[in-house]
C-alpha cells in the first residue's frame, strides 16, 4: 500500500478510493439479537430513552411525541410485548409482463396491559412484510383506557364507557361488561382486545366486517377513543409540564393541580 502511493493518489485509505476490506471484523454478524443490542439512536427521543431519562411510554404519550424508532418501544415495554400476524394477503398489480404479486401482512402487537399497536406492511416476500409490519405496529402503539362496569373493586377490567370506532363501512361498538363476561366479540377484534388487556366487554359491529383490514382498524380506532372520552375524572385543570423538546415555555395560568395522567390512574386503580 505504501509503495503504490505515488501513482494511485493519497497515502491512507481515504474515502472514495478504497473502502475495501473490513479490517475490524464488522459486518459479518448474524442474528437479530446482536443488532438490537447495538442500537444507535437516531432521534433525540431515542437518545433520551437509551440514556434512561424516559422510563415509561406514558411520559411520551403525555407530550404527544412521535415515536420514530421501534427500539424505543422495545426498551420501554420490553419482553411483555407480544405480536401476532392476523392475516397475509397476496395483492397484485398489473404490469405489462403479467402480474406482480406482493404480500400484505397485518400484525397486532400488545402487552396485555393497556398498550396495543397495529401494523400493515406490503412487501415482495412474506418474511419481509411480517418484519416490517411488526416494526410499524410497534411505532403505532397506543394506550388503552380501562375502567369498571360497576363497583370499583380490584383492577379495571373493561372499557370505561360505550365507545365506537369506524373505518370504511365497519363500525365497532364496545360496551362495558361485568366481570366474568369475557370478551364477547368476533374472532378478529377479540384478538386485538386480548392484546389490549381488556378482560370483559360486549361488542357490536356493523358493516362489511369481512374486510379484515377495516374491521381491525375499526376496533383499533375504538380503543384509541377510550382516552379521548371526557369523563368527570378529567374535569380538573391540567398542570402542564415541560416537554423534553419544548423550546419556548409560556406560563399557562395557575398550575396548581396534579398531572392529568396520574389522576386517572389513581382513580381507576
Amino acid at each position, binding site marked *: 500500500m*505504501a509503495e503504490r502511493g*505515488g501513482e494511485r*493518489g*493519497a*497515502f*491512507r485509505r*481515504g*474515502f*472514495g*478510493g478504497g*473502502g475495501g476490506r*473490513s479490517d*475490524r471484523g*464488522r*459486518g459479518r454478524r448474524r442474528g437479530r439479537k446482536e443488532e438490537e443490542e*447495538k*442500537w*444507535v*439512536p*437516531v*432521534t*433525540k427521543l431515542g*437518545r433520551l430513552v*437509551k440514556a434512561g*431519562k424516559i422510563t415509561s411510554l406514558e411520559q411520551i404519550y403525555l407530550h*404527544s*411525541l*412521535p415515536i*420514530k*424508532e421501534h427500539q424505543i418501544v422495545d426498551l420501554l415495554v420490553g419482553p411483555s410485548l407480544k405480536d401476532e*400476524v392476523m392475516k*397475509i*394477503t*397476496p*395483492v*397484485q*398489480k*398489473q404490469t405489462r409482463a403479467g402480474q406482480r404479486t*406482493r404480500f400484505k401482512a397485518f400484525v397486532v402487537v400488545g402487552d396485555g396491559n393497556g398498550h396495543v399497536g397495529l*401494523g*400493515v406492511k*406490503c412487501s415482495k416476500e*412474506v418474511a419481509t412484510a411480517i418484519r*416490517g409490519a411488526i416494526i*410499524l405496529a410497534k411505532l403505532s402503539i*397506543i394506550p388503552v383506557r380501562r375502567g369498571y362496569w360497576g363497583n370499583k373493586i380490584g383492577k379495571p377490567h373493561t372499557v370505561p364507557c360505550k365507545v365506537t370506532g369506524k*373505518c*370504511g363501512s365497519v363500525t365497532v361498538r364496545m360496551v362495558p361488561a361485568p366481570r366474568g363476561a369475557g370478551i364477547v366479540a368476533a*374472532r*378478529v377484534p377479540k384478538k386485538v382486545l386480548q392484546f389490549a388487556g381488556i378482560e370483559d366487554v360486549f361488542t357490536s359491529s356493523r358493516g362489511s366486517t*369481512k*374486510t*379484515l*383490514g*377495516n374491521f381491525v*382498524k375499526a376496533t383499533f380506532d375504538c380503543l*384509541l377513543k377510550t382516552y379521548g372520552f371526557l369523563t368527570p375524572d378529567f374535569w380538573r385543570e391540567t398542570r402542564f409540564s415541560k416537554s*423534553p*423538546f*419544548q423550546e419556548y415555555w409560556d406560563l399557562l395560568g395557575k398550575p396548581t393541580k396534579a398531572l392529568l395522567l396520574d389522576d386517572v390512574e389513581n382513580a381507576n386503580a
Partner: protein
Amino acid sequence: MEIDSVEKLKGLQITALDDEEEEEEEEKAQEIDIYDEEEEDEEEEQEPVILGFVEKPEHSWSLLRQQFPSKAGAVPAWLDPDNLPSGRSCVCDLCGEPLQFLLQVYAPLVEKESAFHRTVFVFMCLSMNCLLRDQHEQWKRQPEKSSRSVKVFRCQLPNVNHFYSSEPPKGNKTDKPLTSGAPLCNWCGTWKGDKFCSSCKSARYCSQKHQVMHWRAGHKPQCQQLSLSPQPPESNTYNDGTTGVNEMKGKILLLIKCLCFQTAVASKSLWPEYEMKNEHESEYETEMSEDDACANNSLVSRSGMDDSMKSLLDSFEGDGDRKSWASFQERIAKAPEQVLRYCRSPKARPLWPMSSGRPSQTNIPNCSYCGGPLCFEFQILPQLLYYFGVKNDVGSLDWATIVVYTCEASCDGVGYKEEFSWVQLSSPSPNLP
C-alpha cells in the same frame, strides 16, 4: 401501444357490480389492484456507498495531520497548516461565535493530480437556535449572501508540496510534517491564533470571545506568571503536535492536562475525539431468511379481497414523511452504527430521512470559485450525536442529516474553499395515526 392495451384487456375480468357478494367467487381468482401501489424499492440506481464509522483512536499520534486522518470531534487536523480559513469563515454568521469542528473526511481524488491529498472539513455552531435560523438561510439562492451556521471547507494538495513529504507516512510516532504550521487558538485549538493576549503575549486566540473564555477559565492567574518570564516564549501551540523549544517554563505553568494532549486546548466543550474508519455498504447486506412458517399462524384464511386497502395504507403505512423515514431506517438498519455515508458521484442521491425539506436541483448553488456545478459527496447521520454524547436538553443540537455538496470538478486553489451544506431537521410535529 396497441399491444399493451390488448394485454391489459386480457387481464380484466368481468365482475358483478356488487363486489361484496362476489368475493367468495373470486377467492380462487387472483386479485388485481387497479390503483398503483407505491413502489417499495426505490428505483434509483444504487451507487456504491461507503459508510463511515467512528472509533476511538488507536494511538495519541494517529490523528495528527501528517497521518492524513479522517476524524470527528476535538480539533481538526488541518491539511494545509498555513492558509487556514480566517475572518468571517470561522464564525457563525448568525450569532458570531466561532464554529466548532464536527468532522473531517480524507477523500483524495485518484484521477486528479492536484488532489492527491484532499480533505473536507465540516464545522458547525453549537447553538440549536442558530441551526433553526440556518434552515431559512440554506434555502436562499445566493450563497454569498446567506448567513450559515454550518460551514464546509475543502482543501487539496498535490503529492509534492511544502508541507508533507512525498513519501507515505510510516504510521508510527516518528512521522513529522515538514513545517510546523501556523499557531492555533489556545482555547479551541481549531482556528488560527493570530491575536495575542495583551498582558502575557504568549497566549494566542482566534477571537475575542475565546480570549474572554480562557481568561475566566484559568488564564488569569497564569497570565501574570507567564508575563513575568524574562523572555516571552513563542506561542505554545502549533498544529503539528510538537511544542516550541523555549517554553519549558510555559509548559510547567500550564495545566497538567495539557501534557496529555498534543495541543494544549483549554476548552471543555469540544466533542470527544474519534477516528473514522470506512467500509463499503455492500459488506453489510444481510440475507433475507425465508420464513414462511409464520404464515400458518394467520388468523383468517389467505383468500378474500380487501376492499378499501388504500385507506388502510394511508393511515398505517404513513404519509410521505413516515414512508421516507421508514425507508431511511431500513437502509441504515444494515449497519446501525454508521455516522457517514459517502458517495461522490453526480448520479448519487443522498438518503433523506424526511420527505420535507429536501433541496431541489435549483436549491443547490454552483461552486462559488469556478462556477461549476456541485455534486453530492457525503452525508452525516445523527448517530454521531449519540457518539458525541450530546445532551438531550431542550436547546441541544439535533438534526436528521447534514448533506455536503462539493465542487464536481474539485477546483484548485490555495488554502480552503467553502462548499455547500444542507441540513435537514426532524420535524417536530406529532404525527399520531
